[in-house]
C-alpha cells in the first residue's frame, strides 16, 4: 500500500506540540462553536489514527471499522446513563470493542487483502442492522445530565484521546512490533519466511486499533446529547477514518492529524456553502487521492520539498560549463 517509512521525529514533535497548544483554546475563547469544532477535530484524529494502525501500519484494510466505534459508543452510553462513572464506562466500551476486534481477527485474518475488506464491511453491516432492529429509539441524555452538560470536559477528554492516539502510532512505528507490521504490510509471505509471526502481529494491531476506536466511540457517546444508537455503526464513520487517513498520508504519524484538520475545516466551510454536499465532494476527493496521490498531503509536501531542493541544487551556477 505504501512504501517503507521511518518515524519523522520533527514532524511528530511539531504535531504533538501543536495539539497540546490547542489545550489553551478554552482558556482564551469562550465560544461554544469553536470548542465543538475542536471536539470534532480531535475525534476525527483519534478515529483516523485507530484505522491507521490496522490499515496504514499493518496493511489490513478494515472497512468495518465503524463497528468498533459503534460498540464503544453503545457500551459507554448504556453504562454511563445507567449511572457508571464515565471513565469506567469508556474503559468498558473500549474493552468490548477490543474483544470484538480480537474475535474478528481470529476469524477474518484468514482472509487476505480485498476479501478481508469486504468481509469486515459485511460484519459491520450485520451489527448496524441488528442494533437498529433492537434499539430503534433515539438515545437522549436524561434531563439532569443535560442540565449539568459542560463542554470543557468533553474538549479536554477528546484532546487527550487525540494526543494519546498520536503517541500510540509514533510509539508503534518505533517499536519492533511496528517493524513487524510493516513487514506484513509489504509482503506477508516474505515476512513469515523471515520469522515474523504474521498472525500474531496482525492480532496485536487489531487489539490496538479497536481499543482506540472503542475509546473514540465512548467519547462520542459522552459528547452527544442525543443520537440514534444505530448511527455510530454507519459506514460513514469508516469512511471518515479512511478519508482523513488518506488525505493526510496512510501509515504516517502526522498525516492523519493534517488530514483531520483539512477535513474538519473544509467540511465546516462546505456546510456553510452547500448544506449536505460534503459527502459528495469528499467522496470525489477521496477517489482522486487514491488514484493520483496515494501518499496524501504528507507525500505532496515531500514532493514539493524535493522539487524545490532539486531546483536549488540542479540549476548550474552561471558561468560554469
Amino acid at each position, binding site marked *: 500500500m505504501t512504501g517503507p517509512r521511518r518515524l519523522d521525529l520533527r514532524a511528530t514533535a511539531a504535531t504533538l506540540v501543536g495539539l497540546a497548544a490547542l489545550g489553551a483554546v478554552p482558556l482564551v475563547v469562550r465560544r461554544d462553536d469553536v470548542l465543538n469544532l475542536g471536539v470534532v477535530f480531535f475525534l476525527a484524529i483519534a478515529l483516523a489514527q485507530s484505522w491507521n494502525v490496522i490499515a496504514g501500519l499493518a496493511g489490513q484494510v478494515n472497512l468495518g471499522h465503524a463497528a468498533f466505534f459503534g460498540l464503544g459508543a453503545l457500551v459507554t452510553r448504556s453504562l454511563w446513563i445507567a449511572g457508571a462513572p464515565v471513565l469506567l464506562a469508556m474503559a468498558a466500551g473500549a474493552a468490548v470493542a477490543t474483544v470484538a476486534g480480537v474475535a474478528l481477527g481470529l476469524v477474518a485474518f484468514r482472509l487476505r*487483502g480485498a476479501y478481508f475488506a*469486504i*468481509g469486515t464491511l*459485511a460484519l459491520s453491516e450485520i451489527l448496524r442492522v441488528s442494533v437498529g432492529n433492537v434499539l430503534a429509539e433515539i438515545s437522549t441524555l436524561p434531563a439532569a445530565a443535560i442540565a449539568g452538560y459542560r463542554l470543557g470536559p468533553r474538549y479536554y477528554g477528546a484532546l487527550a484521546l487525540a494526543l494519546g492516539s498520536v503517541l500510540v502510532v509514533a510509539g508503534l512505528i518505533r517499536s519492533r512490533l511496528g517493524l513487524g507490521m510493516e513487514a506484513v504490510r509489504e509482503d506477508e509471505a516474505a515476512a513469515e519466511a523471515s520469522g515474523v509471526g504474521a498472525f500474531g502481529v496482525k492480532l496485536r494491531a487489531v487489539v490496538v486499533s479497536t481499543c482506540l476506536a472503542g475509546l473514540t466511540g465512548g467519547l462520542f457517546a459522552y459528547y452527544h446529547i442525543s443520537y440514534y444508537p444505530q448511527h455510530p455503526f454507519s459506514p460513514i464513520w469508516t469512511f471518515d477514518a479512511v478519508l482523513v487517513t488518506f488525505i493526510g498520508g496512510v501509515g504516517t504519524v502526522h498525516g492523519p492529524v493534517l488530514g483531520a484538520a483539512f477535513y474538519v475545516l473544509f467540511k465546516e466551510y462546505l456546510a456553510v456553502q452547500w448544506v449536505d454536499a460534503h459527502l*459528495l465532494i469528499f467522496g470525489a476527493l477521496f*477517489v482522486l487521492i487514491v488514484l493520483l496521490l496515494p501518499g496524501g498531503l504528507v507525500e505532496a509536501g515531500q514532493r514539493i520539498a524535493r522539487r524545490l531542493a532539486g531546483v536549488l541544487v540542479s540549476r548550474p551556477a552561471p558561468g560554469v560549463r
Partner: protein
Amino acid sequence: MRILQQLVLGLLLGGLYGLAAAGLSLIFGVLKVLNVAHGELIMLGGYAAFWLSAIVGLDPFVALAGVIPLTAVLGLVLYGGLFGFVVRFDEETRIKNSLLVGFGLSLTLHALAVKLWTADERSIPTGYAGQTIGVGGLVLPLGRLASLAVALALIGLTHLFLARARWGQAIRATAEDWEAALLQGIDVRRAYLLAFALGTALAGAAGCLVAVGYSISPAIGLEWTFKALIVVVLAGLGSLFGTFVGGLVLGVAEAASALTFGGPYREVVGLLIFFCVLIARPQGLFGRP
C-alpha cells in the same frame, strides 16, 4: 400455503439478485476489479427508469430499452475516468484500489442522488401494479413475474453474446488469461471497457426492474451491492446461469429466514451466509477448482 407463498415471492426477488450479481460477476471476473459501487449503479438505473416513465410516460419495461444504453454509457465514462486507471496495477493492488475507489464512488453517488431526487422511496406506478395471477392457491404479482422473465432473458442474451459474438469471445479470453489474450492479438483494454460497460448496463437493467416491482431510494446501493456480492460468493465466477440460480437461492433463503426470524433480520441472514462462505473459501471469490 402462506409459507409457500413467501418462498415464491422470495424466488421472484431472487431473480433480480441474480441479474444484479451477473453484472458484478462479469466485471470482477474479467477485470479483476471489485466495484463496490455496483449497488449505486443499480440505484441509478432505477432512477433512470423512474424518470423515463414519469416524464416521457414510457412503460417501465419499454423504458428498459432506454435505461440499458444510458447505463452502458455511464459504464464507459466510469471506466474511462476511474477504473481504467486501476487496471494498470498488479492483481492484488488492483482489487484493493478498486475497492477504495468504489467505496468513495458509492458515497458520492448516494449523496448525489439524495441531492437530486431527495431521500424518498419511489417506485414506478403501472396499470398492472395490483394485478396478480392465481396458480393453485398461490398469488403471483404480474409485474414481478414479468421482471423475473425479463431478468432471465437478459442473462440469456448476455450469455449468447459472450459465447458467440466475436467481442464476447474476446472478453472471455481476457477473463481466462489476459496476457495470453494479448499475445493472440486481442485488444485487452477494449475487452475491459466492453465488459465494464456491459456489467454496468446489467446493473442498470436490474435497477429498472427493482423500480417496477419493488422500490428505490438513494440508500439502496449498499444493500444491493451486498446482495450481488453474496450471490457471487455463493455461485462463483464463470457461469451466468449459475449466478442466476445463486440469486434465486439467496432470494428463497432470505424468505425462509424472514419466516423463521422475522422480517427485519432477512438482511442479516444473507450477510452471515456471505461471511461464512468467505471464511470457508479464504483463497478468494474466484478460487477456480
